[in-house]
């Protein structure tokens, strides 16, 4: 499929329409709603990275919270230790560099195994990072975490500006463009020969090795790319949240990442994006209803796995496919 074919697809028009519509959200949505959307967008970038491992490489990580925390803490620690360099154009590359190092180390250890062994190793490593974030108080702020100041963004200082003003101004557009670029980049990755190789490894590791694909090495690359997306999501999220604490490296948050992806539908490319935004709203409204909000989240996960295993986006894709088939065959 060339660029012309891609542009002529209905999905392209839907995505372009959503992007254009989102450009006008700061003018139409209340600030609080906008912050929820922004939080969802940062999770979406993370979800895209997570799903590169789950959907395309067949590896379920229960430790991605650590990679998210790496990006978020890179921003926080830069603000704490290098306040002169607290500019978004420096912070994002630093967060990516930190994510690259941590995901390269974690990945090197984890991809030596698959299935449940991979999942448990990733979980264990994330808990090691969690323990370090809690214990290294002087460096990380311990369990108190680190407050995230507003950064200088492309030469513009936000000193004295309220966070909600920052978030409903230039930062929203920066985040939207970054999320769009990340989505396009991930789409290109999964459609490239590299993406095909990952899917071959997922489907049949033995055969993949026997056609000359370096299975472990490509799994490692996938883990690193996944870590970069996740770390980027964490860095961008830190500005939205205004505070980072070790909880984002804990297994509970890693479980939430899995939940978001399943909610949207991990078999569909846009599933993690849909799931991340839906989860942000679901969690907030569940918390506002009851202190037992985790019960609601848990019950909804059980219901979804039983009734809609394809996830929300996957369900829509299935529905559209059924309608299309019915229209072409005349059978309903």
């Amino acid at each position, binding site marked *: 499929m060339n660029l012309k074919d891609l542009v002529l697809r209905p999905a392209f028009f839907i995505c372009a329409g959503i992007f254009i519509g989102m450009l006008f959200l700061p003018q139409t949505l209340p600030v609080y709603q906008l912050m929820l959307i922004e939080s969802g967008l940062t999770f979406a970038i993370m979800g895209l990275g997570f799903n590169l491992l789950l959907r395309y490489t067949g590896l379920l990580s229960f430790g991605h919270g650590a990679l998210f925390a790496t990006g978020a803490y890179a921003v926080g620690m830069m603000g704490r230790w290098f306040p002169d360099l607290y500019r978004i154009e420096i912070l994002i590359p630093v967060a990516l560099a930190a994510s690259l190092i941590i995901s390269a180390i974690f990945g090197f250890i984890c991809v030596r195994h698959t299935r449940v062994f991979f999942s448990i190793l990733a979980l264990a490593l994330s808990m090691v990072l969690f323990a370090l974030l809690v214990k290294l108080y002087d460096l990380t702020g311990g369990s108190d975490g680190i407050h995230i100041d507003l950064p200088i963004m492309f030469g513009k200082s936000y000193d004295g500006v309220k966070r909600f003003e920052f978030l409903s101004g230039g930062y929203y557009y920066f985040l939207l463009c970054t999320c769009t670029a990340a989505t396009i980049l991930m789409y290109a990755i999964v459609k490239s020969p590299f993406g095909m190789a990952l899917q071959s490894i997922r489907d049949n590791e033995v055969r993949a090795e*026997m*056609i000359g694909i370096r299975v472990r090495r490509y799994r490692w690359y996938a883990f690193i790319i996944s870590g970069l997306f996740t770390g980027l999501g964490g860095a961008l999220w830190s500005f939205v949240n205004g505070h980072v604490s070790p909880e984002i490296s804990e297994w509970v948050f890693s479980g939430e990442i899995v939940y978001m992806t399943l909610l949207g539908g991990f078999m569909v490319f846009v599933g993690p994006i849909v799931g991340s935004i839906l989860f942000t709203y679901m969690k907030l409204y569940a918390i506002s209803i009851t202190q037992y909000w985790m019960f609601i989240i848990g019950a909804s996960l059980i219901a979804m796995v039983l009734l809609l295993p394809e996830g929300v986006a996957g369900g829509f894709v299935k529905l559209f496919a059924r309608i299309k088939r019915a229209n072409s065959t005349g059978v309903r």
Partner: protein
Amino acid sequence: MLRIEDLVKDFGKSRVINSASFEVKDDEIVALVGPNGAGKTTLVNLISGHILPTSGKIKFLGHDITSASPYRRIKSGIARNFQITNLFEDSSVLDNVRICLFSVYDKINRGILSANYYRDITQEAEGLLNEFGIEAQKHEMPPNLSEGDKKVLDTAMAFALKSKFLLLDEPTSGVATGDKFKVMDTIISAIKKQKMACMIIEHDMDIVSDYSDRVLVLSEGNIIAQGKSEEIMEQDNVKEILFGVKK
């Protein structure tokens, strides 16, 4: 081309390959025959690097590849198919071949251009499917193919690796009896066209005698006879092992 010297493979206390030595020359098609459990697939696994030998040497084109990784062996020109078809079930027939070509041409880690951008590779994959007679099914998923077509696709994938030496592990097993010769004709004509050497594991002695230049007989991990098929079939020990005919 391929030289096996005193190859031994033990699984625990069980010796599966016992000091096997033989040679395969350039452009030669060698059949490896023997009863079930003789060690034929183990031998293929040893040559392809799927498992490593306990002792002995494997030399390919003069280089010692005894402990080389499967990746190194493939890059040096050894490819294989599988006794039980081993395909990428969630990818189309065309993509099963395309991924092999991407691997051969080292395109996998060369940026993030769409796989469809490489039209020359898509055309080559289509040409290969055409050569193997399954181009019409290029958009099908492997589970929708007949057993015969799955076997042909499996072999086409090994063939796509542009190897110099092809290991075919029972290329007609599971194929309907009437289609066996058609499948073999397709495979052998492609092999001869590319002037490859080949080692075929096969149980059907008609296929062995029709398509191979030389036959190796393996029994309990030992090569007990080798030579032209008509000569081999006359030997009493071969008759006894392959057909249960006692003198």
